[in-house]
């Protein structure tokens, strides 16, 4: 490169001031626009929009019993399917729908055994042949939010009756599928996997307790616990275990995932109770998804009339 001495630069070669300033302004405008777009891009990358809803098969001949339904305003399908706690896929509630998109739920069997006379393995297609009922329940998460969801399913009692529990059976243990090829590691989830839950036998046999196979008239979306999950409407949502593969009747209180993770925060019973505090989330009030002010949380999530007899002898603060 030839470096000319100042007296060798012809005046015609010197960029005039106006062009220089224009060029500088042009570069600055470019920098401003470029960095702004880049920042916006990073924001969008971290907070992507929800994926397109996956349409599942219609469930036929749904029975709509007049009890077992609240008249409260339903949450929308979009809300129900884009705000999920399903740690096997993601610890972010808004990312589960996307992460669970390719979850394979066929073939699927539910193995029922333990202290029963007739252990039995049910194929999902057979379970879908049970009479399917619509149950419109409140759903209250321990994190302080709630929804109203039109589940489709059938009473768990039907399964329990068909395997004939032995007299010694006092509890029912549940287990979610854990497939490391389709799900994240226990380390990433921050909890022990497979996910396990449990109920007392009388809770499991209660008419409100159902195995849900769908919602809004369609088969269960993956992110909501396809193809079959438990729903226990008077307990915090984490008790309503998703994608069930195993049901075992036992004589001892079964271990439950969140209780193992933090025993002082999540008890075995975990009944919705505004009088039992949680260190992080207020349990006295809740944020109904779709509303902008908090509403009071009801004892047993509003199902006290139906379930309080199950706990008449118990100190609910001690057995939280």
């Amino acid at each position, binding site marked *: 490169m030839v470096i000319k001495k100042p007296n060798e630069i012809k005046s015609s070669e010197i960029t005039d001031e106006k062009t220089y300033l224009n060029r500088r302004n042009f570069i*600055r405008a470019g*920098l*401003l626009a470029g*960095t*702004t777009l880049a*920042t*916006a891009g990073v*924001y*969008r990358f971290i*907070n992507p*929009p*929800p994926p397109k809803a996956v349409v599942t098969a219609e469930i036929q001949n749904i029975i709509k019993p007049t009890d077992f339904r609240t008249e409260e305003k339903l*949450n929308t399908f*979009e*809300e129900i399917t*884009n*705000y999920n706690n399903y*740690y096997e896929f993601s*610890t*972010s*509630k*808004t990312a589960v729908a996307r992460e669970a998109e390719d979850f394979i739920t066929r073939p699927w069997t539910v193995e029922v055994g333990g202290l029963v006379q007739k252990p039995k393995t049910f194929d999902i297609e057979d379970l879908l042949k049970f009479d399917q009922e619509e149950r419109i329940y409140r759903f209250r998460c321990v*994190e302080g*939010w709630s929804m109203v969801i039109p589940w489709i399913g059938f009473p768990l009692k039907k399964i329990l009756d068909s395997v004939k529990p032995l007299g010694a059976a006092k509890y029912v243990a549940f287990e979610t599928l854990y497939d490391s090829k389709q799900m994240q590691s226990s380390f*990433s*989830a*921050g*909890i022990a996997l497979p996910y396990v839950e449990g109920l007392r036998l009388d809770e499991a046999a209660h008419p409100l307790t159902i195995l849900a196979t769908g919602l809004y008239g369609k088969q269960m979306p993956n992110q909501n616990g396809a193809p079959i999950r438990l729903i226990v409407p008077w307990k915090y949502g984490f008790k309503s275990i998703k994608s069930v593969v195993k049901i075992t009747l036992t004589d001892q209180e079964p271990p439950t995932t969140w209780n193992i*993770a933090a025993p002082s925060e999540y008890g075995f019973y975990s009944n919705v109770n505004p009088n039992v*505090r949680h*260190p*992080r989330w*207020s349990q006295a009030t809740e*944020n109904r*998804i*779709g509303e*902008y*002010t*908090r509403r009071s949380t009801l004892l047993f999530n509003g199902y006290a009339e139906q379930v309080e007899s199950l706990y008449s002898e118990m100190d609910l603060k001690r057995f939280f």
Partner: protein
Amino acid sequence: MNDVKFYKLIIFINSLVPLALLGWDAVFGKLGANPIEFFLRTTGVLTLLFLLITLSVTPLRKYYGWNNLVKFRRMLGLYSFFYGFLHLVTYSIFDKSFSLSAIASDVWQRPFIAIGMLAFFTLIPIAVTSTNGMIKRLGGKNWARLHKLTYIAAILGVIHFWMIVKSDVFYPLLFGLVLGGLLGYRIYAAYEKPKKVLATK
């Protein structure tokens, strides 16, 4: 406009981008199923993020000799305060319906709220004394000492974040590690060159 002023403009605009996108998504109902929680989480993370960026100015300046960086520090710090303020206001209005008694009992019952609140109150004197006039009035030494509160605010902020997550500690851990590095550098620098300790102001 000189270069410093121009870069200030770039930082000013870019720091507002997350708020603009939050506002845009709010108007079009695209904040997801739980907009309040999303707004709270985003403003909270931004508060910590700006606090960490602010705290990285001194190490970068000293390590690379980029002395001009210090000219942007006040704005970055004030953005942290700004997002922290939005975080607190959102919590007060939507989570607690602006009820002081509800907030007070929340502080009492939930330690993570108390810690977050304390972190914010720690930021107030720093924000208030961020003007040139205040630096003069306090004197450089006192001012620098007062502004060390930033370390406390950042530590409390990370603890606050850590306490709210259920099991997914990845992000709080990441913030904690970065903060540890930034504070560790300061301890190291103070230990290595005791005479230059004032340079951390």
